[in-house]
């Protein structure tokens, strides 16, 4: 039986007076590379990190308490604001948990629309992340703008479908809010068909770039064992070789109908986490191609689902989906009233930060920025 090993602060050289030369630096909360208001208390020996403590809560608004005083449907727009880059997967996670709690079925077309929007969200998130990560590494502007150019096309699709670019508020219990406007599917097919061009270009420019490899290979290595023990999920866990994709494990929605593979990394360093996003985007494109080919006509919401006066029977449920950042779970307890008795969001961003100190110890300050960038966090979700 093994017990827990916490990261022990690195020992410094035993010269007298050395302790006084350690420098404590507060990185953040106003720091361009922390992707929001996030702070790390870093203790440095020269350039080397000997201790790192993340400080959370600058964006805390107690989303869970708000949701407990709100109807089930009333929380749907709030879920957009968790991981505000991926509002559609947040919607799906919440809708899925409520549907499983209340036993609501979803019509075929709505399931397809959910898969299409969720995979488009995954493309958008991973493209953005690659841009942000390269920006953090000092490739100022250009890669990020290339990624944002692609994101723009997907956001246009979301705007045409849901009326909003980022705060989509699209899913409902038992289906989706609106059907696609005329020509939307063709437009989506075009975006999906054009997307590999961007990936090829990005790969050609940056995958074997010498500076990139130097900055990322062997940096921030996460072992498979630590990833499991710390419940790391999503691309970060798969980069460490943990074959765990909830789309495959739970087969929620209609994911069992699509043929896609789960890419795995072998080193668990920043480079693997970077590459895994490329590969996942290619797999998402496969799913999108199949879904856009097979989508049937029909209703988009279960006619029996009641949007108003919705009261699930007493009980509880933990439902989860594979969000672009990892396992997004919603734990709901119903006492039969219109409000959830307990509403809990399992935020992948926060839990993936559990190992941040382990990854950063011994590296330089500049690497902390890159390692944090490769974890892929959004502070709206970390602090909730």
């Amino acid at each position, binding site marked *: 039986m093994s017990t827990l090993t916490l990261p022990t602060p690195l020992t410094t050289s035993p010269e007298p007076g050395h302790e006084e030369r350690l420098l404590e630096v507060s990185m953040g909360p106003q720091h361009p590379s922390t992707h929001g208001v996030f702070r790390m208390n870093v203790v440095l020996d020269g350039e080397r990190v000997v201790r790192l403590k993340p400080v959370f*809560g600058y964006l805390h608004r107690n989303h869970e308490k708000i949701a407990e005083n709100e109807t089930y449907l009333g929380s749907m727009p709030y879920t957009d604001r968790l991981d505000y880059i991926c509002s559609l997967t947040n919607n799906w996670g919440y809708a899925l948990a409520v549907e499983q*709690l209340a036993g609501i079925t979803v019509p075929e077309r709505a399931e397809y629309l959910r898969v299409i929007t969720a995979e488009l969200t995954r493309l958008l998130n991973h493209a953005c992340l690659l841009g942000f990560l390269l920006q953090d590494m000092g490739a100022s502007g250009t890669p990020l703008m290339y990624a944002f150019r692609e994101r723009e096309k997907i956001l246009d699709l979301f705007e045409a479908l849901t009326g909003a670019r980022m705060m989509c508020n699209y899913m409902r219990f038992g289906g989706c809010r609106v059907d696609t406007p005329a020509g939307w599917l063709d437009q989506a097919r075009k975006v999906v068909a054009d997307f590999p061009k961007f990936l090829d270009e990005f790969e050609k420019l940056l995958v074997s770039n010498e500076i990139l490899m130097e900055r990322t290979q062997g940096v921030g290595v996460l072992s498979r064992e630590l990833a499991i023990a710390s*419940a790391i999920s999503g691309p970060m866990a798969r980069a460490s070789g943990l074959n765990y994709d909830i789309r495959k494990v739970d087969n929620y929605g209609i994911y069992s109908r699509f043929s896609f593979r789960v890419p795995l990394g072998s080193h668990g360093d920043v480079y693997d986490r970077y590459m895994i996003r490329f590969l996942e985007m290619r797999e998402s494109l496969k799913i999108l191609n199949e879904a856009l080919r097979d989508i049937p006509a029909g209703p988009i919401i279960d006619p029996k689902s009641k949007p108003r006066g919705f009261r699930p029977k007493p009980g509880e449920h933990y439902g989860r989906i594979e969000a672009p950042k990892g396992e997004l779970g919603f734990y709901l307890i119903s006492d039969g009233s219109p409000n959830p008795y307990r509403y809990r969001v399992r935020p992948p961003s926060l839990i993936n930060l559990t190992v941040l100190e382990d990854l950063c110890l011994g590296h330089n300050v500049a690497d902390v920025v890159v390692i944090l960038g490769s974890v892929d966090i959004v502070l709206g979700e970390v602090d909730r």
Partner: protein
Amino acid sequence: MDLTAIQSELEKSIPGCRLEIVPNPAPAAQHSLVVDADHAVLVATYLRDFLHFDYCSNVTGVDFLPKELSEKIKVKKTVDGPNGPEEKEVDEVRKTTIPGYLEVVYHLFSTTNRTGPLPLRLRTPNRDLTRESLTLPSLTPVWRSCEFQEREVYDLFGIHFDGHPDLRRLLMWDEFTDHPMRRDYVDPDDYEYEPTAHDEVLARHRAHYSTGAGPAFPEGGGQ
């Protein structure tokens, strides 16, 4: 693996542990296992090492307030009737109180068997809100993923985790005193309160200029 089979295996392997299955009436029927605080770490370690629940995905707290149940019952009583006392059935309301408690729920998954979730629950003995009654063993030594999430439960529910390596508030600031996710939490009147050093700075400033040197103030401060 069936939950009753897990329960009997745990009871066989860990003598003295008290387990209870809480049925869940929801359609997906995620029944959960309540573990007593004394054996929680042992049970958790057994679940991780022998039943392969190696992935503790979600940790959260739940607050159950004391519940008052009132039910109508019929009682036979002698009442004064028109023809003297007579026996009659009278409706009466009987009130019973179910004591409250706080709870920590761990959702376990297995990455090897791809099973789960197994909700594991730890309960406080009562809801007295004293330090003793709110202390539960920490499962961070078993699953590292509990580290931040137990800190969050400590922050928002005020449950103390015995054996946690670094139990501090996670989301609220350190000077905050209450636990906002409790059901009986009352908002503070002043959200904008922020400890600032205005008075100390002013006093220091007065002392600094008490000699009369330095800039003169028209209103005579510091003279």
